[in-house]
């Protein structure tokens, strides 16, 4: 007697995407700002992981995403011909004008743009420490592993990132 066919076995890539896809996309967005570029980089990330999808952990996924983003930023730097990895053009998104919205605290879209604008002014390592810890809730030890530094360094980078981001938001009227 033939067995009833099992339900289609879950694809490991689907599982990986379901577990980390949204988080990685948010992380990429914080690194490159442009949502379309972030989506492309997400695809690149998972394409690179296809052959290593079995047993791929969160650290590997985020490390791969970071490498994709840094490659993109380097290419951008070469194209623009300047000397530093760009904090993706701050003018790409419409952050509110200085002091123009002093009473807006709950405008999530505006705040998101303001945060992304603020993150864009930070060095990449502070951005990564901030986003992965503050937004994604990843432990310092895991972020440290990803960046190849100590957990204490992550704590310090995050502290500096928070301080600068708050200054930026204060200038935009998002924090008094």
């Amino acid at each position, binding site marked *: 007697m033939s067995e009833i066919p099992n339900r289609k076995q879950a694809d490991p*890539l*689907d599982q990986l*995407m379901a577990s980390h*896809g*949204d988080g*990685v*996309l*948010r992380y990429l*967005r*914080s690194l490159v700002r442009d*949502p379309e570029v972030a*989506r*492309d980089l*997400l*695809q*690149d990330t*998972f*394409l690179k992981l*296809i052959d290593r999808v079995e047993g791929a952990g969160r650290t590997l996924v985020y490390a791969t995403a970071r490498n994709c983003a840094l490659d993109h930023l380097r290419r951008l730097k070469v194209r623009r011909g300047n000397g530093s990895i760009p904090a993706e053009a701050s003018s790409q998104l419409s952050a509110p004008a200085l002091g123009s919205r002093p009473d807006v*605290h*709950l405008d*999530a*879209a505006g*705040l*998101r743009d303001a*945060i992304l604008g603020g993150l864009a002014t930070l060095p990449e390592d502070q951005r990564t420490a901030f986003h992965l*810890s*503050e*937004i994604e*809730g990843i*432990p*310092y030890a895991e972020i440290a592993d990803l960046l190849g530094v100590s*957990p204490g360094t992550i*704590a*310090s980078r*995050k*502290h500096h990132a*928070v*301080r600068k981001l*708050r200054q930026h938001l204060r200038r935009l009227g998002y*924090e008094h």
Partner: protein
Amino acid sequence: MNTETWKVTLEAYLDGELSQQQARDFEELAASDPAVEAELATRRSLRAAWRDALLAPGETQATRPIRIPSGRFRRKTMGWLPPALAASLALLLAIPLLDRSEHAQNENITPALTRSGQVVAPSFGEIPGRIVVLEPGVFDLPSGWCR
């Protein structure tokens, strides 16, 4: 503990990175120092607002790469490309067909001479039986034709 130090510790406290003893020490500090307590409350509310803003669904929803029959994957971008290629191909095929059809239509007009000396086109286009009578002199006969 100076200000810079307790602010770093505050972050670690919020992130759950302190040991139980360290966390208790920090809570004692916060209870005894209004500035620390106020900063802790501010950071908690900021974290909630930042997470709400950045975790909001919409632009940050991932789509997986598409699997193609060979088992390889391709990026799910440039979705406009296949329809654009199909439309271009259709246009390339249609141009010679339209041209040939127009040419064939012209070939159907076969002028002839009647006894009265009128030039008659026995059929015209795709309307069978339609006869077009041209006035003498209107239609120039090609060389080699004779009346």
